[in-house]
């Protein structure tokens, strides 16, 4: 990005907003949450966010929908057997690479 000044303005807003979101609740919230609904909501939210971020965006993440689909299937199989993050990510990448060798 050529314009250095506007890069730093973007960066300050980007980092500032992200930090505030993480920091303010952590600093302010020092009491134990009692509401059962809120506790349940907080328990489910990470799974819901990650799912909504992944589907359907994952299909368009690579050069071809088919390679992405293959990578996703492999990631699901490896995750089902509870492999760690790194092997799952590596397995999906490798699958995409191999499938695209044949496709493209």
């Amino acid at each position, binding site marked *: 990005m050529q314009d250095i000044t506007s890069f730093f303005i973007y960066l300050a807003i980007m980092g500032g907003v*992200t930090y505030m979101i993480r920091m303010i609740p952590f600093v302010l919230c020092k009491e134990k949450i009692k509401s059962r609904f809120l506790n*349940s909501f907080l328990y*489910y939210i990470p799974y*819901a966010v*990650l799912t909504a*971020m992944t589907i359907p965006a994952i299909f368009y993440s690579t*050069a071809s929908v088919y390679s992405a689909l293959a990578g996703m299937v492999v990631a699901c199989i490896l995750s089902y057997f509870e492999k760690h993050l790194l092997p799952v990510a590596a397995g999906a990448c490798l699958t995409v690479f191999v499938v695209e060798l044949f496709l493209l």
Partner: protein
Amino acid sequence: MRISLLNEVIVTNKQAKNTPFIQGFKDGIPICLGYFSVAFAFGIFSVGQGLYVWQTILVSMANITSAGQLAGVPIMTMGLPLVNMALSQFVINLRYALMSISLSQKVDSSVRTIDRLIISFVNTDEVFAVAFSQKQKLSRYYLYGLILMPYIGWSGGTTLGALAGNILPVRVISALSIALYAMFIAIVLPPAKKNRAVLFVVIIAAGLSIMFRYLPLLNQVSGSIACLICAVAASAIMAILSPIRIAEADTNSDRTNHTSSTSTKGVN
């Protein structure tokens, strides 16, 4: 005899050395490894979008948020209004507010306000998940240990990706682009397999997300806002239909040991 005694001394020394800080440091190493590939992919992506290598590294060091950075860099390079940047980061990263609230329920009294200011900077999905897998309350020493390696992995992986991205062939870049999503699957699928309610949350969130992508009118909603609507709706629906026992909230993810220790009270 001598030797075994010596061994014993060494062993006890080692155990004594396993302070909360060291323990946290060790727990952070797998996160660091996981981040490395994702950060690497981000480095490639960002340079491909037109940021310089040093700018790419700064973005990672200042944010430590995969999805937020993926959304933010194109906004920079396309020169979209600043309010777009603020809004997109707010919406995409709003889940961290929820995680910070959860984490605030988990720390002990050694965590002062100044510690909260520092630790919250690196409160990522994975740091949060590992922190919650601990059965005991967390001290500030543990948390400082825990965030160290992920931060190094995220910054270092970005640096290498940004530098090597220029050399790597297109095929390799395409293959690496799926790493982030594969990691999300690895976080979500194991608990969804074991816990029916989590499975329903995943199905509802996925269904809504697909509707927002493909249905007319709904597909006018920008991606990050749609993501938040899907997540809040899915979680709220299941929080009403299938409220958890309070103990579950303490060991937040099913990947983690279910030694629900502290508060089984308050269940009714």
